[in-house]
């Protein structure tokens, strides 16, 4: 399966890019598995920053209420949303 992950705001600097495409031979990803992918395929610093509870997650454009309960499926677009700066 493959998922697209977008890094918004300061997370973009930590990731060194605005988005990544991850391909995995296994099936759906849960939250710990998604963090593990970020840690191993991007940087541990990014995974640490994303563990901050203020970082929200959107799947296919909808903010997820409980990110710990998330299930990421093939073709999903995940956006990692750090605290906003406001307009």
């Amino acid at each position, binding site marked *: 399966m493959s998922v697209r992950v*977008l890094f*918004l*705001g*300061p997370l*973009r*600097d930590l990731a060194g890019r605005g988005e990544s495409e991850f391909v995995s031979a296994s099936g759906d990803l849960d939250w710990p598995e998604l963090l593990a992918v970020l840690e191993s395929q991007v940087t541990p610093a990014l995974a640490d920053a994303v563990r901050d509870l203020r970082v929200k997650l*959107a799947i*296919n*454009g*909808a*903010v997820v209420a409980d990110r710990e309960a998330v299930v990421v499926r093939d073709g999903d677009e995940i*956006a990692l*949303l*750090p*605290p*906003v*700066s*406001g*307009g």
Partner: protein
Amino acid sequence: MRLLDRGFSPAPPLARLARACPQSGGVASYVGTVRSEGVLALELQHYPPLTLPGMENLAVAAVERFGLDGLLVWHRVGMLRPASPIVLAAAAARHRRQALDAVEYLMDHLKSAAWFWKRERRADGWHWIEPRAEDFSALDRWT
């Protein structure tokens, strides 16, 4: 509600709002601009699936709450130069107080809850802007 990736002049949209709401007693507006002291550039990032829909929800809430005849919010994204407009928020209503309060309501919510990420370039490089505590406490007056 509009997100713009190029500079804009606030006067034409304000004039259009006034023309569209002839029954209103007035139009209140606020224009936010990029600070000039020490800031060389400002970059505003957004996430399209959330940012504009979030602003539209805010607009619906403001129209209902203040009984507005019309409102508009234009917001820049992308790279901005010092002194250029970032945001224009305007509200047309029968009475002055409704229009002025609606603009404050829009700005308080945009500053603390809209899906934007900002960074400033100063002499020593880029700095991401974190929301200030005052931006959140400003929301308390509306609850």
